[in-house]
């Protein structure tokens, strides 16, 4: 029986923290996005386009026990994730990077946690992306 990825809220317990801290993204866009109305949508779309490729590389490297490859894929995904508010994923990727090549570390388990976290990030980023499209319209289509 697989363990569910998304912890479910239980009466009396706080709701789980989202995978994407929207405040981080909002702060970033407020700081650097003056005069760039589409910046948030551009960043999210870019992340959704690029990140799955890096995750695929990470999964392949983990399966092949290629520590250096896993570290490189984790490294490349880490900065963008941290920038856009996927803070927990960024932390997990940094742990993957640090654990790669270190003896006695369970890189497989750590990597699997990061991959699972990415699934949550992807869903939430996808929701942000859809919301942006609703506000701005789908490029190339009249509303």
């Amino acid at each position: 029986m697989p363990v569910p990825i998304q912890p479910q809220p239980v009466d009396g317990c706080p709701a789980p923290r989202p995978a994407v801290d929207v405040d981080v993204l909002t702060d970033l866009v407020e700081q650097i996005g003056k005069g760039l109305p589409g910046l948030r949508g551009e960043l999210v779309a870019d992340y959704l386009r690029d990140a799955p490729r890096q995750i695929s590389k990470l999964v392949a490297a983990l399966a092949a026990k290629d520590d250096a490859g896993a570290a490189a894929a984790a490294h490349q995904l880490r900065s963008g994730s941290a920038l856009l508010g996927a803070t927990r994923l960024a932390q997990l990727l940094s742990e993957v990077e640090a654990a790669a090549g270190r003896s006695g570390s369970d890189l497989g388990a750590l990597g699997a946690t990061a991959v699972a976290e990415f699934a949550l990030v992807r869903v939430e980023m996808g929701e942000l992306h859809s919301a942006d499209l609703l506000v701005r319209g789908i490029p190339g289509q009249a509303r």
Partner: protein
Amino acid sequence: MRVLGVDDDSVSRLVLRATVGSLGHECLLAADGRQAWDIVQRGGVDVVITDRMMPDMDGLELCRRIREQPNTGYVYVVLASVLDAHDQVREGMLAGADDYLLKPLRRHDVELRLIAAERVSAGHRQLEQATSELRMIARRDPLTGLGNRLALQEELATLAHRADRYGHRYSIALLDLDHFKAVNDDLGHQAGDDALHAVGQLLAASCRGGDTCYRYGGEEFLCIFPEQSAETAGIAVRRLQQDLIALAIPNAASSYGGQLTFSAGIAELNTHTADVDGLLRQTDLALYRAKANGRNRVEVVLPSDGVSAA
């Protein structure tokens, strides 16, 4: 300023471009070190903010290449990395970085780096401009406005190389004002300076079609006539002698109507005579023959001067 952002992660690139733009600077982007290096070599980049770890050419190698390239003007380099361990930072600074940034980049950190970059770049620009002005001043004779001996030496070295390698030929005329000491002695040094200035003006005005003139020494001048034989250069020099007499600069010691004249020696610089120092010595001998034969004359280097006749 023009800033080049280098990162293999596209989200980081977009954020960097927006950050630099929000700080009022232009931002170019490159996805790896090799692409960045191509852009830097084209010139016009003031600042590079580069990721440290990238496939192909990493940030350290990019730093090293930028520092080894002398001709692009100073490029201020900031290395960005998720690691801030001392030895890592030190390695980056030794590779040529001016500063360090921690990733993920924050706007106010980038702003601080660009303030420093602007100051340092302005200093380097001023230095480069001053150096180029000094280089020009160091090669010009202030009295006559002609190139001086340093400029001449550089030019002759270039011409000797061209003569040797591509078979070009040049005629060189060494001019010496006759009895010039008498002008200074009889009329004062100001009159002497005026005479030198007038000769300089005359030579500069007569330089056409790539001919160049230099002040060689006290009252000596040197003219270079590209692609001319000693004979045709001799015709040009005799015309200059007539032009000088027409200026009617008084010289009591002159045997030519009490007017200032010059004598000249001419030699040809070609593929057989590519030794500049030797050539100048021969030209000097021809000049002294012109003096000995009565002044206000032109003599061409002879085989007896040690160089084959032109």
